[in-house]
């Protein structure tokens, strides 16, 4: 089935089977490997992308359902000139990652969360990234990153 949607601001058309998952389609068919597949059981959040501005787990989303949707992956956050999104910059500055495997999903969840909760407390920030697992950091610096990123997003707005 040929489906058309907007990926990171650009229209794409891609041939998918009914059972193809969005995570596999962006990685294998569209070559965007920033979206990671960790658990493949919708637990870990490494595969989080935005569909129409909301964070979802792409390993539990059928690509065929996306006709006409707007999809943003981690590759779509930085500006075309390479300037990082404020949330990416915050993860960099606050040392919000170690191995980095969970980071794309973590950042995508954090951007959606901060857009709805621009001034979170540490507890709110931790709850906001509940759907994302990190097996390195213990989350302390990730929570700091989310708060700093939210503050930077307020300024950019």
């Amino acid at each position, binding site marked *: 089935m040929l489906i058309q949607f907007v990926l990171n601001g650009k229209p794409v058309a891609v041939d998918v089977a009914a*059972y193809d*998952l969005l995570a596999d389609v962006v990685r294998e068919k569209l070559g965007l490997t920033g979206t990671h597949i960790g658990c493949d059981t919708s637990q870990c959040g490494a595969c*989080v992308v935005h569909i129409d501005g*909301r964070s979802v*787990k792409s390993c*539990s*989303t*059928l690509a065929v359902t996306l006709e006409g949707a707007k999809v943003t992956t981690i590759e779509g956050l930085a500006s075309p000139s390479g300037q990082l999104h404020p949330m990416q910059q915050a993860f960099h500055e606050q040392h919000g990652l170690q191995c980095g495997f969970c980071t794309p999903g973590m950042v995508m969840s954090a951007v959606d969360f901060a857009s709805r909760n621009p001034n979170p407390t540490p507890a709110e920030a931790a709850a*906001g990234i509940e*759907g994302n697992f990190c097996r390195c950091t213990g989350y302390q610096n990730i929570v700091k990153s989310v708060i700093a990123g939210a503050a930077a997003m307020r300024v950019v707005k």
Partner: protein
Amino acid sequence: MLNFEYLRPSTVTEAGAMLGKMSEARPLAGGMTLIPAMKLRLAAPTALVDLAGVPELNGIKVDGKTVIVGAMTKHADVAASADVRRLIPALADLAGGIGDAQVRNKGTLGGSIANNDPAACYPAAVLALGATVTTNRRKIAADSFFTGMFETALEPGEIVTGVTFPVPAAAAYEKFRSPASRYALVGVFVAKTTGGVRVAVTGAATCVFRASAIESILAEKFSAEALASLRFPADGLNSDLHGDAQYRAQLVGVLTKRAVAKLS
């Protein structure tokens, strides 16, 4: 995942006709349970009828003393709805505590109650508030909707279109969640309705149920102290790696007291 036919109707009538034609077809709501089950081949429908393109199934309306939530309304939208927050804040709280943010951005009310997972949150609200489930064929009272483990009164080809929640005088939901799955190990929804006090328990048994013994205590005196000597029986409750039947019975009492204390 095994292959299947993907169908995208734009009206409920069309969706009903598609489901009626193929016995192994299933409706797709948010897919938060169905898609993982299909990946594990626990479910292998020959066709999915995607309800996301049916606008009449989505949205929240206030009608007199009821709140009507469309079947395809997402948990995040119920949690954020100003109408739900004002009229049935316990329902908004419940929706805001389901799964994680990503589940709440896709999962739907209709999907949750049609699936009737023994540990799902929404069935407790639907049952305790004495809501009415509307389908493409009829209206079903909550008391006769949830019939067993993953079983409901829905017939093949029948689609939940929405749920009508009567606005209660007061209501609260308390949940002891599994930290891994975020499902309710036990969840208790207490509501003061025009039909009296209703208490629905999820997570504890094979299907959501009303705790009538607790309801009669609370009908006499609505206070946490009235429940001080409550020993909820463990008979028939679930035992699994998360907790045995005695533990769940204890949780029913504790969570009911917390919910009642919130309202006193």
